[in-house]
């Protein structure tokens, strides 16, 4: 379980996260919605330890991510997929995927490669194992990014706007893969602007506004007239998104 309690994050004197409390249980798919600048990415970056919380606590299966040992343990069981893919440019797709399993989990190279090839095949990239990121399209790169995350066999996957850098067509390719994952009981924290997709895969939706969680509801309730839609801010947000 990911437990976030009273999380505060300030940069200089601006408060970006202002007392966020959120539990993500195993098997849940939690979508984080919110306007640009509301703190979604910062929340993800605090969970994976790229930002240090200014206050509050975050534990991943009991490992306190603000301690060195806790963060190391938490990173072994969680993985992140990034908006801009962040693939290692000097390594092939296979190299990108096998690096952490070999270096962090101590797998043998042969075993890691076999697993990586299976993952690539699963996302429709069987023939691309030896290509470098530069030789792949955006959608293919992000699929490699997803394989890289999955290769750690993580209990938790954090995804921060993983399709925003893609065109509508390739977005579909990537969402299809996430859809598959969702049915495999992987726990996900999913930041996205793809509301329709979020609705179809999430078990819960949280809505952030200016560093706070405005609502935290089961998906069905969030989209119900007497649930999330009854909150004027959320109604406004959703109608804006639909317009785009």
């Amino acid at each position, binding site marked *: 379980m990911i437990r976030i309690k009273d999380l505060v994050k300030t940069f200089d004197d601006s408060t970006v996260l202002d007392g966020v409390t959120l539990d993500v249980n195993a098997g849940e798919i939690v979508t984080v919605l919110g306007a640009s600048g509301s703190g979604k990415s910062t929340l993800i970056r605090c969970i994976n330890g790229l930002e240090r919380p200014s206050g509050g606590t975050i534990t991943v299966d009991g490992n306190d991510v603000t301690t060195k040992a806790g963060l190391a343990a938490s990173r072994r069981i969680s993985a992140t997929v990034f908006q801009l893919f*962040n693939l290692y440019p000097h390594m092939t797709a296979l190299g990108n995927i096998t690096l952490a399993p070999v270096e962090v989990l101590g797998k043998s190279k042969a075993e890691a490669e076999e697993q990586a090839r299976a993952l690539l095949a699963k996302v429709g990239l069987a023939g691309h194992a030896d290509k*470098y990121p530069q030789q792949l399209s955006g959608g293919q790169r992000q699929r490699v990014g997803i394989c890289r995350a999955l290769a*750690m066999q993580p209990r938790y996957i954090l995804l921060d706007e993983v399709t925003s850098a893609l065109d509508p067509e390739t977005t579909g390719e990537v969402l299809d893969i996430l859809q598959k994952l969702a049915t495999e009981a992987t726990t996900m924290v999913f930041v996205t602007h793809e509301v329709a997709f979020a609705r179809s895969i999430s078990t819960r939706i949280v809505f952030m506004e200016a560093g706070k969680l405005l609502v935290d509801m089961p998906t069905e309730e969030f989209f119900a007239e007497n649930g999330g839609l009854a909150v004027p801010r959320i109604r406004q947000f959703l109608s804006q998104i639909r317009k785009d």
Partner: protein
Amino acid sequence: MRVWRVIEPYIGFLLQGFALTIFACLLAIIGAVILGGIVASMRASQRSALRWVAHAYSDIFRNVPFLVQLFFLFYGLPELGIYIGAFETGVIALSLAGGAFVSDVILSGIRSIDRGVIEAARVSGLNDVKVFLRIVLPIALRVSVRPVGSVLINLVLTSSILSTITVNELTGVAKIVAAETFKPFEVYAVLLVLYASFTTALSLAIVAWHRRLNRFMTGA
């Protein structure tokens, strides 16, 4: 051929000097690249003590004439009770001076790396040392091949100064031959060709290596 008539009796001697130049330069290139890589990592380190030491080193060696550094080591090391030959002293001096410049170039390579790529590696659980060795350094080296190459070519040119501490590398033997034959023009004409062919070979090798390493990289 006027030049050939003058040079012919000394050609073996000159080529010996050339071989010594190549040998000294190859050793110093290895030394400078290793040292430059280490110093660049220290300069990029989180620890202020390491950064300070590395800065002091690169500042000193970039800001003092090579001849002074060379004499300082040549006459200074024996004062410290360290007795090594002139050739060894020369190789060390070249490595130290080259390393300072190489560290500059690699450091700017390190600074040019996309933060997101480093973050991806850290998040995947790699510790700082592994992130540095598997991600940061290999990428920095790839983008730095060409500028490092210019430093190394400069190092070859600078190696002629080793003749001042009695190392009979190419310039050293040329001085001797010029003095014996009283034909400095012919001797230095040959030298010009030899140095130019060495540095040209080196720069071709660097271009090829750069191409190879950056086959699939963007922005490099």
